[in-house]
């Protein structure tokens, strides 16, 4: 039982991070119908930026934790969203309206380029960061096993919930959210109604990159080890999460992320660590066979 609860906590933490990345995929897919293959790399850049920011704060001697966290968050968000914007502007906007495969190849190219760009500028070795937030709460203790809910896990889960709430409000209530939903439904009609579609799409990429930056920062703090290749598999998992939850649906992305995190944590805990990726893709295939539009997705209506 204790072990179960511990894996539950770990799974939820991991799932929060997947969910944050998955939102970027699902929003972009919803609005322009393409797989933003470079999104995993954006998340990786977010992680590198936050490790750089932590290092600089360490050198300059800022030690008050809340201030340090806010500054790192700001740096990571601002610069990562600049990358998100630039990727869209360079690699996707010129291809808007051409066949989808072209955009996908362009995205794969961008992903390779960004990976190797970070490899060249930051080096191939892993970067490690000392734990920033230490300690935790003991939830449950039996004779030989204690369930620990560490402060960093609390921080990750709370921040994810907060961001989800903010984004849900943003999409549901603000003019930008309405514009996004309008572009999602009918881009031509949205243009006719005076919505600046290009700007809305750019903002969507920026929002996705912001969440990826937060995920990158959280992962840096949680695991403390990053490298230039981390974006590929995380991006793949996050896209799986988005598909699992029903692509295009924001709560679906979060739900998919959580489920994937839980599956992975329990599989790794009870069966084998090596095959945890196989388990998560297996779940994806099963869900797609029985629920082709994902858990919370709208069923796809085919029209002639």
């Amino acid at each position: 039982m204790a072990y179960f609860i511990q894996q539950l906590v770990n799974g939820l933490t991991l799932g929060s991070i997947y969910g944050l990345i998955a939102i970027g995929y699902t929003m972009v897919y919803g609005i322009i119908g393409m797989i933003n293959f470079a999104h995993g790399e954006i998340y990786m850049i977010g992680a590198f930026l936050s490790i750089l920011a932590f290092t600089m704060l360490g050198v300059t001697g800022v030690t008050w934790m809340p201030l340090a966290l806010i500054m790192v968050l700001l740096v990571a968000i601002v610069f990562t969203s600049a990358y998100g914007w630039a990727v869209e502007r360079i690699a996707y906007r010129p291809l808007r309206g051409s066949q989808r495969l072209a955009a996908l190849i362009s995205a794969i190219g961008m992903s390779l380029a960004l990976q190797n760009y970070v490899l060249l500028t930051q080096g191939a070795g892993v970067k490690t960061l000392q734990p920033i937030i230490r300690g935790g709460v003991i939830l449950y203790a039996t004779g030989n096993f204690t369930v620990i809910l560490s402060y960093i896990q609390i921080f990750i889960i709370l921040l994810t919930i907060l961001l989800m709430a903010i984004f849900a409000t943003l999409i549901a209530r603000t003019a930008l959210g309405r514009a996004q939903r309008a572009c999602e439904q009918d881009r031509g009609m949205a243009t006719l109604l005076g919505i600046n579609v290009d700007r809305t799409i750019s903002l969507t990429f920026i929002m996705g990159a912001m969440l990826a930056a937060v995920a990158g920062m959280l992962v840096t703090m949680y695991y403390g080890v990053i490298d230039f290749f981390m974006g590929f598999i995380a991006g793949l998992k996050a896209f799986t999460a988005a598909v699992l939850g029903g692509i295009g649906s924001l709560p679906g992305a979060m739900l998919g992320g959580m489920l994937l995190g839980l599956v992975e944590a329990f599989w790794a805990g009870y069966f084998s660590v090596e095959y945890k990726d196989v388990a998560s893709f297996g779940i994806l295939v099963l869900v797609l066979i029985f629920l082709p539009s994902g858990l919370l997705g709208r069923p796809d209506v085919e029209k002639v």
Partner: protein
Amino acid sequence: MANQSSLGLEKLRASAVLKEAGLASLVALVLALPLIGFRTVGGGDGLSFEFRWEALVVSVVIVFLGRSLVTAMHGVWRLNRFSLPGFQRFGSVIERRQVLLILGIIVLALLFPLMPEVDRRAVDLATLVLIYVMLGWGLNIVVGLAGLLDLGYVAFYAVGAYTFALLGTVYDWSFWGCLPIAGAVAAMFGILLGYPVLRLRGDYLAIVTLGFGEIIRVVLTNWVALSGGPNGIAGIPRPTLFGLEFTRRTREGHSFHEYFDLPFSGDHRIIFLYYVILILALITNIFVLRIRKLPIGRAWEALREDEIACRSLGINPVNTKLSAFALGAMFGGFAGAFFASRNGFISPESFTFIESAIVLSIVVLGGMGSQIGVVLAAAAIVLLPEALREFSEYRMLVFGLAMVLVMVWRPRGLLAHRRPTLMLNPSRPIAPK
């Protein structure tokens, strides 16, 4: 008068160019500042960072100059990607002179190893190009003809390679005996994977195939008892010419040089391998050309263009797609068996996602459905990193950026050719989407 106004326009444009370039370099500054300007160094007990202003300045200047050039090309000289002189007609010339060109390429390919200046390394490189050509043609069935997006093609390549490697090392089966088995096993995997997921929409298929590619690699890495794990399988038998081996001495029978009374040379094997893959690739090509004209090939193309119309005409979309998927997988399996036999050693390292991406970009860069486009794109993609070997640090960066640039420049591929083989009204051009 006209001169003056055009001069004024030029001036205006020049300032606009500068403004545009200035904006671009400002963005570049923001992007480059944290990742190029700073570098975190050290590890273990605490990181520190260094500031590299030279690299920062260089990258901003490069962006400034590049952006000025591109803006000037678009604005002042009115050049854009559609009017770049020469290239516009390149595709149509190739299409008109196709038969001649194909014959030329085949003759060139046949004579290539016999040419005087061609050394062993060149033949080896050409063999690699041909492997990618074959993979490209195989994937072209799935992506170009049937319009299914497969991001995990390398999985079938791996299945073929491991099938032959296991049969060859454990049971001592020969390459030629295993080749059909490798293809059949790969096709079976294609059907097993395709059956549940081909009912789904295109992008789900893409992600499931991508996941499948990863699963195969993870299984091959971790199932040490079967595949040798990360250490791979070594000592895979080489192909033989009707039983003649290409070694200095053989255990029984004759080796190639003894039989033909030639002095022993390692080049024989390299050249023989080149011809084997050339023949395999040509068989793939002829197969694809012929099957396009069969009802099943027509059904693939029709399904790609309009699935709903096909269903109303009584074509079973799942079976049709499944056949394309299985055939594509089969050629991937053949290529994999050849790859294993050529290298003599395989490990999961050779079957990463990047291989799938390379093969897919060969198909798309070449222009989907175009057989010659695949050849040109495969040659470009294999030879470009080879030519950039001196800048080997930068070559994957350049490779990625080149993929983006080619797509932005010609979104339908270098030799755009995605015309259905049969059309009701052939005079009507397909609207550029």
